[in-house]
């Protein structure tokens, strides 16, 4: 096991900057998600760490050892590919045995290790099958067993759950997390699925256009996004834009929105505030304001019922705001109804304009 340090790594393909001065410290034993839209550079970064491609500039080290010019086969990493990449000409057991057998391990050692790895992914009885005889979820497990049987220093996963259907994906998320905890391996996981990143990882790095936008624990990024992009890419957010008032902003129509304590920007500059849809309360009357400093009036334009909750779309001064309300059995609001929205400054994140 080992931590991975990526320092100031840049990589260009022709005129396209796939990675632009990216630095991340992947702690030993952590489960890390690299999240970003397609073309954000997350897979390029993973391939630099794996050693399929070398950075133009910058350093990469695994367990303190500089590896940025070391080819993949010498890096002692384990990798799971998006399409699993199982060798179709070999049985499941031979697939898992591959890494040990190219190393020249003794047959008896290989057989025992392979069985242990297959048991770990709960496929102990399927060693004799061929990959094409397995379901998608089973292939996924074989790919994982094959990647970890060699006891790599780092486990790299390239959108490993992308090809699975929703129910299976949730199962595999839990399974993957269990296995990762059990062997305690540093894991770096590329995904474009924000839910997957939130539920599985200890830390998330958000990439956009080859740059690291924000990095930290899921709760921190969700609660305190540092950019509009981070706020809207990880989860949903209502964004208000205006001029800063120090610890909040003033909208163009003069309405003030207060942000939580500690958030201060030089007054007068352009800035925005982000509010999560589930933090806003919606009511029909102007009623008592029970301490919520931020109040806006609007009109419901649409309601989407999703069983345990409803999403209201509220029109306000040409902007559509999203509000998510838990289904408590209370009266539901009709489309076209005038409403008042309230939320606390603590639920409001002040973001400097970039």
């Amino acid at each position: 096991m080992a931590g991975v340090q990526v320092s100031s790594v840049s990589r260009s393909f022709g005129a396209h900057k796939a990675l632009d001065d990216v630095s991340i410290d992947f702690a030993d034993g952590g489960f890390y998600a690299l999240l970003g839209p397609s073309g954000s550079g997350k897979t390029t970064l993973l391939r630099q760490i794996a050693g399929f491609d070398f950075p133009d500039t910058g350093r990469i080290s695994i367990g303190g050892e500089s590896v940025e010019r070391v080819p993949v086969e010498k890096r002692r990493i384990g990798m799971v590919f998006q399409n699993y990449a199982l060798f179709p000409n070999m049985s499941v057991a031979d697939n898992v045995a591959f890494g040990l057998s190219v190393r020249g391990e003794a047959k008896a050692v290989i057989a025992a290790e392979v069985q242990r790895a297959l048991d770990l992914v709960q496929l102990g009885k399927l060693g004799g099958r061929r990959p094409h005889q397995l379901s998608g979820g089973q292939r996924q497990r074989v790919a994982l067993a094959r990647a970890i049987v060699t006891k790599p220093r780092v486990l790299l996963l390239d959108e490993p759950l992308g090809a699975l259907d929703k129910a299976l994906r949730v199962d595999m998320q839990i399974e993957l997390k269990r296995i990762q905890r059990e062997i305690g391996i540093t894991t770096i996981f590329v995904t474009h699925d924000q839910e997957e990143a939130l539920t599985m990882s200890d830390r998330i790095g958000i990439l956009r256009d080859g740059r690291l936008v924000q990095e930290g624990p899921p709760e921190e990024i969700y609660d305190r996004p540092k950019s509009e992009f981070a706020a809207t890419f990880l989860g949903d957010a209502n964004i208000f834009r205006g001029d800063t008032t120090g610890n909040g902003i003033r909208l163009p129509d003069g309405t003030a929105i207060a942000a939580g304590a500690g958030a201060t920007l030089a007054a007068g500059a352009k800035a925005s505030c982000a509010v999560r849809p589930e933090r806003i309360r919606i009511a029909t009357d102007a009623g008592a304001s029970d301490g919520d400093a931020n109040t806006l009036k609007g009109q419901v334009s649409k309601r989407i019922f999703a069983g345990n909750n409803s999403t209201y779309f509220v029109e306000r001064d040409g902007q559509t705001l999203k509000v998510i309300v838990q289904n408590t059995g209370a009266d539901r609001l009709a489309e076209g109804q005038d409403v008042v929205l309230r939320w606390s400054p603590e639920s409001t994140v002040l973001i400097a304009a970039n």
Partner: protein
Amino acid sequence: MAAQSATASRSGLRSALPLLAPAYLWLTVAIFLPLSAMVFFSFMTDLPLSGKSWAFTLGNYAAFFSQSLYLTLLLASLRLGLEVTLWCIVIGYPAAYVLAKVLKGRSREAIFLLVILPFWSNGLVRIFSWAMVLREGGILDTALNAVLPFKINIDLMYSYPAVIIGLVHSYVPYMVLTCYLTLQAIDDSLIEAGRSLGASRLQVLKRVIIPLSMPGLVAGAALIFVPVVGSFMEPRILGGRTGTFYGTVIEDQFVAVFNWPLGAALSFILLAVVLVILAIASPVLRRAA
């Protein structure tokens, strides 16, 4: 379930009949009929042309076994087929690999064109141009002596190597094409997966790429081996005196000696031997594939 799928495939065959019929009619007319005439000839004492009397005989087949020359030549031809096939693998497989896995876009198209160019030139022209290259004082000899500081004599004409060179040149595109098709179907991520597991490029080649491209190698080898064993044009023109092979002997029976029955019998013995070799080789090759 099984019965159902059997019915389905039977009705599938009926609806596919109009699509199959032209090809099979053509094969019947173009191959089966002349071939059965040749089978018939091979059992005759003489050609029934120009009113000569003839009778049925096994003598033509007996001739093969009574004269050791035919067996010697057959073995020489089989060896020729094996060597040409091996050279085609040695030369064609790396080219196919580069075409399928290294080159992309325009450069791939250009190199591909160069590979299949031999197909577009006339066979005789191809062989005679080799003759100009290989003979003493020919292009190869002159060019090498122009470059090298010492005098050497390159006269490959009328030799076994010349026959090999001519045949490999003619047949290597088959190997490139069949291997290219199977190599191209191998997902790059399989190669990357192998390397991520600690395998060197050579180990990945040996344990992943070659086994997965085996069907292409086998198809290419069969496409090359069979016609090379019966080849006569390249051996005759490039081999000269040394170019006597089983194929040239068969050709002689048809065009020089006019002993069609013997020529036909020798052809069918060759066919039988090749079929036996392929039958023996196929389970081995299928397991390898």
